[in-house]
């Protein structure tokens, strides 16, 4: 049995976003909130479908952020696409910095020295760290190229003489 609510975004979140746009004195009927809640899900489905078609045509299995941006543009949501390309870029930078830090700390502790693929969500085969599918990956596939030198070995220096 599939809960009907599972196919919708939480109405509280939807209402909150709506309120930010409206003047303080504005009121929103419950049906209007529900309608916009439904529209948002339809929006996700619609854009995902377009993105998924593109992946299928290009023989790729994973729908990534770039595909979503492309689909948004293709469906007429150009303004969103631009804003999101910037947002995605910031996110990827953030993620690669986190990955860099994780690599350093895991190198310090692990004997095997392998970096973990953090599984934020089940069923993913790509994470934000390894953008091998993306044509616009812009060198984020390896963080070692960006930061070859400054590694924080302060912890190692205090406790161990050798990293292994």
């Amino acid at each position, binding site marked *: 049995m599939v809960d009907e609510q599972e196919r919708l975004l939480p109405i509280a979140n939807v209402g909150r*976003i709506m309120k930010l746009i409206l003047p303080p004195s504005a009121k929103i009927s419950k049906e209007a909130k529900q*309608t916009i809640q439904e529209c948002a899900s339809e929006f996700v489905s619609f854009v995902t479908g377009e993105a998924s078609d593109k992946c299928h045509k290009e023989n790729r299995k994973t729908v990534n*952020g770039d595909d979503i941006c492309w689909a948004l543009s293709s*469906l*007429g949501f150009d303004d969103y696409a631009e804003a999101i390309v910037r947002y995605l870029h910031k996110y990827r930078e953030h993620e690669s910095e986190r990955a860099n830090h994780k690599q350093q700390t895991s190198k310090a502790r692990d004997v095997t020295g392998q970096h973990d693929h953090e599984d934020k969500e089940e069923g993913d085969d*790509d994470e934000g760290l390894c953008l091998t599918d993306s044509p616009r990956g812009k060198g984020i596939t390896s963080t070692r190229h960006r930061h070859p030198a400054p590694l924080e070995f302060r912890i190692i220096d205090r406790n161990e003489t050798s990293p292994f």
Partner: protein
Amino acid sequence: MRQPGMYSGMLSGISGKTGPHSLPLARIKKIMKKSGDDVKMISGEAPIVFSKACELFIEELTRQSWAMTMQGRRRTLHKDDVASAVAATDIFDFLVNLVSEPPNADEDAPGGTNNIEH
């Protein structure tokens, strides 16, 4: 203070950084997966992108709907205002069937008056 503007979420407030998002990522992912049988693998960043895209979408649809409310000189945004906004905006064409579905009860009948026609 409320900040009207398309990118209010980008600059500050809701999700100015890549930290907490205003919409639950797991739910977004579920909706994505339900959109089609051939949607099998979704990258970790896709729900995050959608979290932002949905914010922008909800903001825009709300703004357009509110314009309809104001045209009717009302202060309460009704479902009909959303329907009018969808009808008036090309990129919302995919929503036309969704918003024109008859409600369970005729509470939101246009005009809002009792049916006392003779």
